[in-house]
Structure formats: C-alpha cells, structure tokens
C-alpha cells in the first residue's frame, strides 16, 4: 500500500459507531472541507480505516498539512433524506477530526 501512515494508529476500528461533528466551518469564513453537509451530525459506522493523508483543509490554502487518519464511514440512506429504501446505504470518506465516538 502506498497510503502513507503518520505513525499514530487510527482511533476508530472497523465497526465503531461514530457521529460526524455538527460543525459548519462555512459559516466562519473561507474554508475547504471534504465532509458533505448531509452527513454532519449523523450517526454512522466505521467500515475501515483508509490510511493517513495530508489534511485537505490545509492543503487548500497551501498551509503545512499534517496527516490525518481517513475512514470509510457507512450511513443508512433513508434517515438522511426521509426518503429512499430501507437497507440502502451511503459510504463516505471522512477524516478523523470530523468524527466523534457515538
């Protein structure tokens, strides 16, 4: 694997229940974030850690970008939209600093 590691172990293991932070940096000034609005504040399950990558929120402004653990996180689809078919899911790459234990 060429996904680099930052030396620190992932905080969340496969199967961990997590909540995406209900945070809106968009309201506080210029930013670039890769956490879609529709999962903010939502409960999900870690599928697996994907490795550590330079934080895009820093890369976007050419700042020093420490590596952050990235995860595949799974969400039930219907609760997000109050729509859709039970059992369908959405899986999103989310950085560790956006996740809290749930």
């Amino acid at each position, binding site marked *: 694997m060429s996904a680099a590691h930052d030396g620190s172990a992932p905080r969340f293991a496969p199967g961990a229940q997590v909540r995406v932070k209900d945070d809106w940096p968009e309201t506080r000034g210029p930013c670039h974030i890769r956490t879609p609005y529709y999962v903010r504040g939502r409960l999900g399950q870690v599928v697996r850690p994907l490795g550590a990558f330079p934080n895009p929120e820093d890369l976007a402004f050419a700042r020093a970008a420490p590596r952050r653990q*990235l995860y595949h996180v799974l969400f039930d689809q219907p609760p997000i939209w109050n729509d859709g078919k039970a059992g*369908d*899911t959405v899986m*999103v790459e*989310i950085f560790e600093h956006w996740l809290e234990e749930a």
Partner: protein
Amino acid sequence: MAAPPSGVNLALLDKLVAALSAKGLVTEAEITERQAITDRASPEIGARMVARAWTDPDYYALLMRDGKAAAEAAGASMAGAPELGVLENTPSQHHLVVCTLCSCYPRALLGYPPGWYKSFAYRSRAVREPRAVLAEWGTQIPDDMEIRVVDSTADYRWMVLPMRPAGTEGWSVEKLASIITRDALVGVALPRVAGSD
C-alpha cells in the same frame, strides 16, 4: 450537452498558457505529452482488470489489497495518481460511485470522466435517489439487494468490481473484458451477456 467554452475563456486559456510559458513553467510540448498520456487511460484497462480478477485468484487478491499496483500490472500509468480503491459487488450489495462535492473519478485508470458523471444532476441525485437514477439507465437492482452509494470525497478514487454474469463460463479474459463497460465500473450498469434477458 455541454456548451462550448465562451470566447472569454478561450482567450483566458491562451493568456494563461502564454504567461506560464513566459515563466518557463509550461510548454506546448509538455501539454501535448500530458494529453497523450491522459488519452491512453481507458475503461478498457479497467475492464481487463475486472476480467482478470474474475479468472485469476492471485490477481483478485492484489486488486482488493492494492488497486494502484493492480492497475500498474494491467498497464495503467498510475504514477502520481491518488489511491485506487475497489468496491466489490456481491449478490446482496451493489455499489454506485458519485462525487457530490466535485467530480472525483479514477482518471489515471479510466480516462476523462464522461459528461454525465460531472453533471449537477448526477452529483446531486445519485446519493439521494440511486434507484431512480439507475432505472433511468435501465439498470434494475432487486429490492432485496442493498445499494451502497459511495460518495468519493477524499484521497481515494473508486472503481466497482461487478459480479461475473451467468453464462460466461469458460470465456477467455478478452471475451470477458468485452462485456465490462465503463458504466459498469462506475456502477450505473451491469455487465450483460448478449442474448440474455
């Protein structure tokens, strides 16, 4: 269909290239070379990877463990490209790839994304009403099969590994690859055997 670029932006491109050239940063030769490399990327390489994974357990293991290495082994030029993740469809789970935030796509492997993948309608709808979008493609996913929409948001680019259809027993890798379309590698279609259904 996509509208052609405006005259303003055509002129802007010329001015940008001229300014970057004047700084020694970009030459016409480099542009031609990059374009040629990008033009060589193709869904056909992805199709061969899938066909080989269907028939070669060692290659399947490599593909699932390290997509970039498996793509290199199939002849793709992956230097400098993001990680390549592979999403395996099963009898109970179908994957559909979208990028709601921009239009992340495994370009290094599959080439330029098609217009529809970059469209606002696809980016917006695939994540919310995947069954409706798939139905518009003529792709019916059984009710008891989970649709897992993969929103490509960060450092991986994703390719779907479709299920091998019945009726392909004994086929060569080349013949198998011939039924694997770009759409199947994104998850909006399924490989089809001519004459079935």
